[in-house]
């Protein structure tokens, strides 16, 4: 099958891999108890719905609220209480309000633990492009994306693995203007979970029914297969825990 024909078949085929909800759900598993977290607009916002029970996570929104809660009921609605996407939100008990200087000191001063963002492109070094395609007639708009990637401790990306036309978004170098250099830690796509490391991009998990080769074909750089390693590690852990149980 030619590449073009294959791409068309990808487009027209039914949903394979993880859907948007499942990508958010998978990412949410990695949000640790006690984290301060900033979620980008779009799929990243959904992560909050899926953080496992029993974990207490505080959500930061850069327009000036730490302790962001759910969408408001009609009675709770206040046009002065919104998130960074300018949607109405609520504040949880224990929340705090602050001005933009303090809010971005939390971000730029390395106080926020995790930020989840979308991407247009990610490079093998962890460069991120997610604010502009560089098109001449576009109205450039950046918001807080550059501050978040520069200042937050861990950057998770949730993205479709390829564009709608089947073009790889994970590349040797980003061709779009950068949001930040060497900033991405982990990528959750509809097909897999990939870690950005000094050694290169390591695929650590596959969506159900997806093979390593299938992901590799849709990725612009050579991936390191971390699945074998992971299985070994998992087996070791099982052995260890059995050991412990015996003592």
């Amino acid at each position: 099958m030619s590449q073009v024909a294959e791409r068309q078949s990808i487009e027209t085929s039914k949903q394979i891999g993880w859907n948007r909800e499942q990508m958010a759900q998978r990412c949410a598993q990695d949000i640790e108890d006690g984290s301060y977290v900033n979620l980008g607009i779009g799929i990243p916002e959904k992560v909050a719905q899926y953080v496992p029970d029993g974990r207490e996570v505080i959500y930061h929104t850069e327009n000036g609220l730490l302790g962001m809660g759910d969408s408001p009921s009609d009675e709770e609605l206040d046009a002065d209480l919104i998130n960074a996407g300018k949607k109405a939100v609520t504040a949880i008990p224990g929340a705090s309000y602050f001005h933009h200087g303090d809010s971005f000191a939390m971000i730029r001063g390395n106080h926020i633990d995790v930020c989840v963002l979308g991407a247009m492109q990610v490079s093998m070094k962890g460069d991120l492009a997610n604010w502009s395609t560089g098109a001449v007639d576009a109205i450039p708009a950046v918001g807080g994306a550059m501050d978040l990637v520069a200042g937050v401790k861990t950057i998770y990306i949730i993205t479709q693995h390829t564009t709608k036309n089947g073009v790889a978004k994970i590349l040797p170098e980003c061709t779009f203007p950068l949001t930040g250099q060497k900033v991405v830690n982990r990528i959750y796509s509809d097909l897999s979970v990939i870690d950005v490391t000094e050694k290169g991009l390591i695929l650590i998990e596959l969506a159900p029914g997806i093979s390593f080769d299938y992901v590799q074909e849709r990725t612009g750089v050579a991936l390191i297969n971390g699945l074998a390693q992971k299985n070994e590690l998992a087996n070791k852990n099982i052995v260890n825990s059995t050991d412990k149980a015996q003592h």
Partner: protein
Amino acid sequence: MIDKRVASCASAVADIKDGDTVMIGGFGEAGSPIELIHALIDHGAKNLTVINNNTGSGRVGLAALIENGQVAKMICSYPRTANSLVFPELYRSGKIELELVPQGTLAERIRAGGAGIPAFFTKTSVGTPLADGKECRRFEGDDYVMERGLKADFALIKAKQADRYGNLTFNKTARNFAPIMAMAAKNTLVQVNEMVELGVLDPENVITPGIFVNALIEVTHPQQESQLVKDGIVYPQTNNPATSSIKEVNVGETQA
């Protein structure tokens, strides 16, 4: 006796001159001082440089100020939003200048301006087009870009409560840029939902101390930008005879 109250929004903005730099508080509509902006439209000062996170929505407030041809340059982080009609058109036709600044850098530039800091170094935007032409330096093994503090001739902001000294509190996320803009402007003009007596505001809870405030105008029932946009309101009314009620409402609201 210190009493920073003024008679009307019109008298508050009367000293804004052509070519001035004006910071306008608000993130989207939250915290947008819409009555003060409309007074600035009536006042008519031109060739302004305006600093705000966005460029307004619909054809009221900041968007109306831009549409009225009073703004030569915008300094902002996110000039396009769902209902921004005015700015994109003017920008594409080359009629308005844009200085795009990352949101946190914008906030820090304003804070630095207010604190007497002419420049600072930040990691934000290193290696991106927004660092082009800026001085870079390496500290402790990491690259930083130099950004300049921002000051303004005027700041227009909205607060929840104020006393006559100009001590301010804010409502929820409507606080956003207001406290730092109040610090960075030579003249800070505040529209406030409620004036209170001295001593009513607990000093522990004052967010902006009165030293940063120059003029106060009580607007007890401010208009809501999203509602005006929804109702298809255009400001000033002369642009649209069908919305003749709006100016009268404004005059009523802006009396002290």
